[in-house]
């Protein structure tokens, strides 16, 4: 009657951070200046993300998460500090070098529309991924085969998508299309900025399942940016907590969430509604 429900047991897929560092940073800072006023959006952060790891960056609205993601992607200039890619200082000073960098690092954004040109048909969006990977010269049948495979990986039927525009898809289908793109691009690093924020828990489980499978299949490293502490706890190997532009705490997921040391982390964890323990209304850290 029905297809088998997809399931993900995150613990099977979690990894120890023994891989080589693929992306790291020292003193990475972003200052926005407007009308003589300085706004330090990201404030001297250090980090080291390793091969195959799933890392979450957690923080409240405005804490600087998206700004950091944009610097990691090379979409925003860094005000101070350095980013290292595959062990050496990142160089994206020319268009060519930037393009090469983007073969290795890709993003899924808060707003699904920002990831691709919505005025291109879905076929073009997917073909473009193959071009970016340098597979533009493959025979047509082979390309079609890869695209069909990517669609079925996310439970979409290519036959039902061809000749349509992305905005003709439902929200859930659009999210899946983004993951199909990642499947085709097979980047070394995937940045996912709140890819599930707008959807309900049930569709969220489906998306997570697909991302985790994708990680398992390709060994890519995932950086997950979210407000959702429960979600970060569930999927991550390591968690970085961001408060007003600074990383106030980082470590293994269990350690950061179950035995937090920073007041900010304590407050965040404390304020999430629970189902096994009572939701504590009494304690309030600051605010």
């Amino acid at each position, binding site marked *: 009657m029905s297809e088998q429900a997809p399931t993900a047991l995150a613990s099977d897929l979690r990894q120890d951070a023994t891989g080589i560092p693929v992306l790291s940073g020292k003193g990475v800072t972003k200052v926005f200046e407007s009308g003589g006023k300085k706004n330090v959006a990201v404030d001297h952060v250090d980090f080291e993300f390793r091969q195959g790891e799933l890392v979450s960056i957690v923080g409240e609205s405005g804490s600087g998460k998206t700004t950091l993601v944009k610097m990691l992607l090379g979409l925003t200039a860094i005000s101070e500090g350095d980013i290292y890619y595959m062990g050496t200082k990142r160089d994206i000073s020319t268009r060519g070098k930037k393009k090469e960098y983007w073969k290795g690092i890709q993003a899924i954004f808060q707003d699904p529309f920002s990831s691709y040109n919505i005025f291109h048909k879905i076929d073009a969006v997917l073909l473009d991924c193959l071009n970016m990977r340098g597979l533009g010269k493959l025979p047509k049948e082979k390309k079609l085969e890869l695209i069909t495979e990517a669609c079925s990986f996310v439970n979409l039927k290519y036959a039902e998508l061809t000749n349509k525009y992305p905005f003709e898809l439902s929200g859930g289908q659009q999210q899946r299309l983004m993951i199909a793109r990642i499947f085709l691009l097979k980047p070394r690093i995937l940045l996912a900025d709140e890819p599930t924020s707008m959807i*309900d828990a*049930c569709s969220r489980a489906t998306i997570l*399942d697909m991302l985790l499978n994708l990680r398992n299949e390709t060994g890519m490293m995932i950086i997950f940016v979210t407000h959702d502490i*429960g*979600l970060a706890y569930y999927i991550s190997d390591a968690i970085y907590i961001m408060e007003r532009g600074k990383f106030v705490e980082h470590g293994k997921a269990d350690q950061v969430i179950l035995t937090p040391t920073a007041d900010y982390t304590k407050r965040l964890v404390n304020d999430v509604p*629970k189902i096994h323990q009572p939701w504590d209304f009494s304690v309030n850290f600051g605010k």
Partner: protein
Amino acid sequence: MGKAMLEVRELTTKYITRFHEDVYAVDHVSFTVEEGKSIGIAGESGCGKSTLALSLMGYYFPPLHYTSGDIIIDGKNISGMNPDDVRVKILGTEIAYIPQAAMNALNPTRKILKFIEDVILAHDPKQSKNDIRDLARKRFEVLNLPADVLNRHPVELSGGMKQRTVIAISTILSPKVLIADEPSSALDVTSQKLVIKMIRDMMDMGFIKSMIFITHELPLLYNVTDSILVMYAGQLVESGLAKQMIFDPVHPYSKGLMDSIIVPEEGTRDVKLTAIPGTPPNLKNPPSGCRFADRCKYAQKLCKSFEVSMRKFGEVSPEGDTSERNRAYRCLIPVHELKESYDKEREGGLSS
């Protein structure tokens, strides 16, 4: 049983689209909320939660249309009322409504106190401004909202403070039913907690006589409401106490929802996260029989040909606990068989 504050009987409402198609987003929905109680509504995006909220408050402006059924507030049937009358006679005193984006709905250039004057004067034009100010001050004080907020403008308030202020304004006349549709979903966890704490206080102090709380965030619902209704494709599929629904769901769809809960609590990292395959049916043309059949792993041949209705189940426990008695579900398979299947799967999941 306590006094019924809100009784909904077989309520059916629809959207008429630009292409003159009917979308039955609320389809024969029935439930009761007693005085002092709160009920939660859960379900995937598009299942009809917000439409139910609008329908309950009589907000019948195109494309939304009333079709049939009754809405009875504290004994008074409001279902036939014209929407403009509803606005004057019902909103504020009988029902208050807080949508998700309520905080952005306030005119940013008016003082908070002015909004409160509007709400009260619309209901009773003879009230003096002094009395209104006193009432507002007292209410803000017991709700732990700073009194100076009354003299501020919405733009000066943070998102969380704005949302709490909106809630205080819309409930200033102590309504019989508060309908809150995702009131804290756009907020950070700390602001969310403050909003929820305030709503709880208002229930305890009797400023709200009953509540309908809508969200797809199940742990939140569990902490806020006494009982939970699960909605699927415009219909209710299960109802029960919050605890029963979260920890012991019966309907295969509710079970699927509860299996997708993620909380940052010890041990939960090693629990299997299950997703329900597929997507909900299109409400323009809902399938016959059980609407969940295409996604249900327990589906049988009969499921698609029988119109399944909500059935009561549950027994009085030996200790005389009657809480199990008020549960209901919409499925052809007997409760004990479903539970056996769930138990088996759980064991299978643990041993493998």
